[in-house]
């Protein structure tokens, strides 16, 4: 007896029933903070409260943020997963979508797809010292991790943050830097490039790698997390190496051109890995395995 069309369709429909992974959550832009020239932080809330309540993510993950009609762009989630009810992202205006984002007003509707990517293995860091090193606009992915760790402070030993920018104006999260500086359980060192200081500047002067060398943090039982422009990372790792850090204990996040964020469109493919799936968090040991195509 041949199968009826209805039966066949029902079978096929059951097999294919899945939500569309390209469909973004609807988000409302609640708050805009101007961080630095061209750099803004957005606080986003889910339109659908249930979606907001059920949304979880881990430090290191990123999302695809849309301006409907313009496209999507990739940023890490810059707020900590320990703080629920909203997500934040920080970006610099550079291309089509970031320009459209920069022109949005509070109250605008945006899209968000995520969370995607792998995460910092925070659970493996219990009892260790944490050394955060960030440069310029690369503080956002780190900020999520820093707050995550500070909110779980007693799991870790010493926490040291070294953050540098080209000049004082380009330091992001200025208010939070002040908060971290005030905390007795955090050692914060901020620095600006020579020539980037203002008369009132009280922090260090120098690029991140030499300042790090001068700081000479201990490497025993310490995990280092480094985020910054490629050139900063290039000069920072040798310093860490000299200080005794092994490649397995130095973490970073990679950036690459992305579109789908879920390992299908092919753009972020580096060797057999996808930065959107196998990253963006990598150890330096893993980076050695990657062909230099990122």
């Amino acid at each position, binding site marked *: *007896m*041949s*199968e009826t*069309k209805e039966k*066949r369709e029902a079978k*096929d*429909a059951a*097999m*294919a029933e*899945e*939500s*569309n*992974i*390209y*469909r*973004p959550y*609807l988000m*409302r832009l609640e708050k805009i903070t101007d961080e630095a020239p061209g750099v803004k932080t957005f606080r986003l809330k889910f*339109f659908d409260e249930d979606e907001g309540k059920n949304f979880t993510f881990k430090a290191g993950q990123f999302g695809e943020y*849309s301006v*409907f*009609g*313009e*496209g*999507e762009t990739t940023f890490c989630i810059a707020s900590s997963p320990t703080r629920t009810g909203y997500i934040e992202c920080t970006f610099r205006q*550079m*291309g089509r979508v*970031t320009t459209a984002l920069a022109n949005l007003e509070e109250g605008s*509707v945006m899209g968000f797809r995520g969370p995607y990517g792998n995460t910092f293995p925070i659970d493996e860091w219990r009892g260790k010292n944490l050394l955060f090193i960030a440069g310029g606009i690369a503080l956002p992915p780190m900020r999520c991790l820093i707050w995550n760790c500070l909110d779980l402070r007693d799991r870790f030993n010493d926490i040291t943050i070294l953050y540098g920018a080209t000049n004082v104006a380009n330091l992001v999260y200025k208010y939070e830097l002040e908060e971290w500086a005030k905390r007795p359980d955090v050692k914060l060192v901020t620095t600006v490039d020579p020539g980037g200081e203002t008369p009132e500047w009280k922090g260090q002067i120098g690029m991140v790698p030499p300042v790090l060398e001068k700081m000479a943090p201990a490497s025993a039982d310490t995990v280092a997390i480094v985020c910054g422009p*490629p050139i900063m990372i290039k000069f920072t790792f040798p310093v860490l190496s000299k200080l005794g850090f092994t490649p397995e204990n130095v973490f970073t996040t990679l*950036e*690459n*051109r992305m*579109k*789908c964020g*879920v*390992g*299908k*469109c*092919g*753009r972020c*493919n*580096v*060797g*057999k890995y996808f930065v959107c*799936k196998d990253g963006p968090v990598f150890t330096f040991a893993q980076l050695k395995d990657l*062909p*230099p*195509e*990122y």
Partner: protein
Amino acid sequence: MTIEKRTLKKEAVGEFINRLRAGQWQVVAPKKKDKQVTFGEISGAEDICQDYVQTTQSAKGVLFPRVEELFRYQMQENGAQILEREGPPQGTVIFGLRPCDAAAVAPLAAVFTWDYPDAPFKKRLAQTAIVAISCHQADEYCFCTSVGGSPGDTRGSDILLTRLSGGDYLAEIVTEKGKRLVELAADLFTVAPKEEKEKNLARVEKRFDAKKLAEKLPGFFDSPVWIEQSLRCLGCGACAYVCPACVCFDIQDEGNEKRGRRLRCWDSCGFSQFTLHTSGHNPRSVQSQRWRQRLMHKFSYQPDRLDVVGCVGCGRCSRACPVDMNLLEHLIQIAEG
């Protein structure tokens, strides 16, 4: 399930197609159009062209269209509405595909269904059936046997037809879906023929070993062979677009601040801007790097990660290439180098 064998007489093919259409299947098959043979909807067996080694374009557009709407958006007073389109209205039978093309569904599905299942693709896959026809002829561009396939391969087909010496077909019913198609025309599928399948197939000599190539490739990353091979490459997307296993895509928004849609469209790793960052940094700024990516992705990274070779040896890329890049030649050069 074990493959059942039947005979489909040559006169019955037309009626089989009629029954498929009556069963609400859209039938897509190779048709001759001007100078090319390409896939299109047919209304009867007379529309089908069988006199070719390989069609110019693959049939991957049935599962992964050139342009696909992911969703529509409509901004509203206090929010926005996202509307998704219904799946394809009918099931589609791709009739007369070559076995290599049927096998190409595997690399496509591997990418689209790993980890995050791609709903648009899965919907189409669920509603597509493949009735392939074995190859009688092959040319020097074909190399299915080097990548685990063959002119009579059943992988990926729901039904595989092989034309026998008298013109009738051996029908191998490979999957449950194939069984359902046969049920629409059970009277047309008679007892299995005695004639052997193999003597009716084209001969395609194995030219290299895909496993050995996959092992060799990582060591070739810094070899100057990529520069030599890619000198004449123009950096167009012809090879990627005619390839039944190429999957890279772009996402584009079209519309304005009030309403519009988000589309997915084909893209190629061979384009110079494929990996360009907004900052201006381009990890693959030179054609030799992109050529290397193409080969390594298909023959090393995909087998490593997804357990499937990203190529079925159909040879379309070499036939379509304006400057005769001949993939097979380059693969042999590396496999034996």
